[in-house]
């Protein structure tokens, strides 16, 4: 380190580094959010000077563990030590004073301000920059040391994603961080940039810092990490094993688990009839989106085709492309043997229904009542139930049956939809989408956030729909769910879809490998 942004904390951290080889030790950490257990005794131990990979599926508890370390919330139980000192950070500021810096996946920068303004704003408390010039020279020195080329007077929202990430890294380092948490730093970067980012992580560790690399990518682990910790369902399953000693298969098995048997449905007699087909569909690349790349699939009558994969690999984009909110740049979407109409309304008329992952973004109208939510698609359809005079009693009357059949609890017909719990909101969407005839159903994470009973109810509805002859495309980030319900399964990774395989011919380890490495 040639740059000195040192203040007392950094000095203390450096002294500590010499005295305690272990930078971070977390033992038996537990954390619950209401009924949901996020961490059920997680361990992590990171040494100075190493890149430590933290691996796990969505919801395995990686983020919860790191948020506790970075002071975003407190642990319910367990021990957290930094440089040998037990700590319990009350707020992120306390954690960053102890030399912990987190580089979030979604950057925490102020878009309309320039790079310099962002850095001065963020480091006002830690770096003692009296003048603009002092700040500029400190920043330039640090940037030069890391090999960054950054224009300081450009607004942050005009930078590319990788440049923004560099600003974020500068921000954390100038703040005096000695323990760096990088949350999927390569997820937003192109291949070539990703390699540079991993080299940077290596370099920062070689300088004597501790780098925790949260990642889904096995390549990142083998290329960069010294040791690896794998989490599953809130527990640590591999605790700091040397990265070189583990094969990709072992890591994948550790991540997705192998002990639960695959639940197979009775010999699914899938019709040969194709109800929907996607041919080489690509979607435009835009910021924060994962574009689909030459994605092809065939959905048969009466089957549930499971699309497995980690979140953020193109799932929402796939759903939006199918329902017509996102126009493909190339490729065809074919429904019932004909090219699908462009307008979402026309696709709905053609028998397409969908259940989105975000229930209030694409699913429901929060300020409308249950009855109104149920009535909206019926009233906008081309033919049936189109009427001019819409009375409350008419809407209530047609809603009551659905509320009873779908056991939508905690609501009468006149309740606003936003007051419903997650499970009941999901049931309301199902009640609405299952009204009338449909032949194609696309669902995305249908049981996310639901309790066991509600999840079972929703899953039974999906099986019913398939049994009635609809083609069900189930996009899910939960591998267990995919294995339990689908008759065939394909894996979505970086916007590419693997070949769909009958469920009998797949095993968890193979799927885990596809999920992590792509086809």
């Amino acid at each position, binding site marked *: 380190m040639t740059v000195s942004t040192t203040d007392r904390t950094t000095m203390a951290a450096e002294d500590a580094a010499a005295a305690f080889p272990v930078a971070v030790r977390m033992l038996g950490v537990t954390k619950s959010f209401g009924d949901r257990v996020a961490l059920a005794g997680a361990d992590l131990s990171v040494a100075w000077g190493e890149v430590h990979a933290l691996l796990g599926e969505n919801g395995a508890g990686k983020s919860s563990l790191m948020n506790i370390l970075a002071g975003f919330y407190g642990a319910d139980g367990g021990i957290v030590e930094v440089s040998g000192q037990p700590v319990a950070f009350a707020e992120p500021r306390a954690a960053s004073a102890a030399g912990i810096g987190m580089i979030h996946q979604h950057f925490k920068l102020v878009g309309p301000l320039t790079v310099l303004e962002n850095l001065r704003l963020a480091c006002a408390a830690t770096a003692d920059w009296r003048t603009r010039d002092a700040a500029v020279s400190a920043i330039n020195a640090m940037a030069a040391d890391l090999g960054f080329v950054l224009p300081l007077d450009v607004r942050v929202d005009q930078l590319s994603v990788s440049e923004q990430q560099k600003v974020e890294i500068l921000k954390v380092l100038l703040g005096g961080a000695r323990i760096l948490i990088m949350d999927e730093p390569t997820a937003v970067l192109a291949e070539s940039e990703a390699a540079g980012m991993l080299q940077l992580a290596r370099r920062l560790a070689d300088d004597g810092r501790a780098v925790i690399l949260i990642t889904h990518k096995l390549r990142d682990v083998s290329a960069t990490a010294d040791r690896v910790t794998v989490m599953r369902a809130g527990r640590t399953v591999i605790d700091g094993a040397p990265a070189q000693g583990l094969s990709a298969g072992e890591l994948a098995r550790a991540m997705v688990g192998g002990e639960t048997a695959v639940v197979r449905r009775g010999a699914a007699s899938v019709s040969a009839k194709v109800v929907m087909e996607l041919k080489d569909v690509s979607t435009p690349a835009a910021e924060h989106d994962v574009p689909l790349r030459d994605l092809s699939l065939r959905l048969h009558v009466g089957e549930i085709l499971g699309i497995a994969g980690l979140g953020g690999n193109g799932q929402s984009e796939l759903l939006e492309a199918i329902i017509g909110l996102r126009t493909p740049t190339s490729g065809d979407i074919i429904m019932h043997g004909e090219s699908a109409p462009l307008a*979402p309304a026309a696709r709905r008329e053609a028998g397409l229904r969908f259940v989105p992952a975000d229930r209030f973004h694409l699913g429901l109208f929060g300020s409308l009542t249950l009855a109104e939510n149920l009535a909206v698609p019926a009233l906008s359809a081309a033919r049936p139930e*189109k*009427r*001019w005079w819409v*009375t409350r009693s008419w809407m209530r009357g047609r809603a009551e049956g659905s509320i009873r059949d779908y056991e939508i609890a905690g609501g009468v017909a006149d309740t606003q939809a936003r007051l419903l719990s997650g499970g009941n909101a999901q049931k309301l969407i199902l009640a609405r989408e299952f009204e009338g005839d449909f032949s194609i159903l696309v669902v995305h994470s249908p049981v996310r956030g639901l309790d066991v009973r509600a999840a079972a109810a929703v899953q039974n509805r999906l099986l019913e729909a398939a049994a009635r002859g609809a083609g069900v495309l189930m996009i899910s980030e939960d591998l267990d769910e995919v294995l339990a319900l689908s008759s065939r399964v394909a894996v979505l990774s970086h916007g590419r879809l693997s070949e769909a395989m009958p469920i009998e011919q797949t095993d968890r380890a193979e799927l885990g490998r596809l999920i992590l490495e792509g086809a």
Partner: protein
Amino acid sequence: MSALPYRLVLSPRLAVPRWLTAATLVGGILFGLLCCAILLIAFGVPANDLGNEFILYVFGNKAGLDQTFTRAISLVLVSMSVALCLRIRFWNIGVEGQLWMGALGATAVSFYHVGPWFLRMPLMILAAAAGGALWCGIAAVAKIRLRADEVITTLLLNYVAYLLAQDLLYGIWRNPSDSFPVSPPFASYERLPDFPGWHLHYGLFIALIVTVFCWWLCRYSRFGLLSKAVAENRTASRALGIPVARITLMTACLAGAVSGLAGFSITAGEEHRLTQFVGNDYIFPSIAIAYLGRANPVGVFIAALAVAGLYTAGDSLKAFYQLPNTMVVTMEAFLLLTVAAFDVFVRYRITLIKARPKPVAAVGERAA
């Protein structure tokens, strides 16, 4: 941190009872009137004359009522136009332009003697509605097709309509008899009749019919429900097959037509010709009234009456106390501010709790 013995805690409300919404609206208006009263007293209006000015002069005698109701007609119509658009989150800042276009439409029918005399007035009404609908429709099409921000387009179209009217008044429509920049006067069958003995004209019925129609439209029609959905979430609406573009265009055209009717009501009911002063100073009041009435047609009707009353009171204040015209605008702004501020009672449950002394340890920790 604070040395106060009590703390205010604001917690967001999940469900808002109807009576509370109404009560805060009334509370906001009363508080705003109190502020206005203080302001007027500060400007030298005797306190015991205030009741006289506000209540007796505005609602207590025929001249005041006459003036208030006549003013209210056009205010109801232009505010309804803004309110209809607000319901789908379309910002109609162009009621003046739409009003001018309505007035031009009506005047054109009169000027060119379109149709026989007994069809003249219905044709004028249609032309006025069409003119307004066209002017707001242009902005809606620009929004749908070109993603042009309607705040800018509707605002600028005001000037286009105004300048077009000026061009006509100084050009081919100029009154040939005296060469003033006004159109020739309307024939008797082209004028809205007055109520016998009043200046108030039958335009009141237009305002009432439009209010009832809009109330039905918002509350009981398919269109009303679907536009509620569109206002809440455009993306979800599109995904569920709601014709978002069509609803936007229809709402805009309807709102423009309603503004256009205000132009008809002023030319055919008050001025009896097209003048230079047909469509001035409506933009701010229309938005204020639409907001005061919570974009609800019945609420808008009542708010428009109240604001018209405020204007009448303002006229009297101007005459008797030499207060400037801006005083009325200031009072209007007071009402708007207090009503907006009282919204906090609708959104949050406010509780006053006794503050506990902060634990000393926490303070020490922070210092370290």
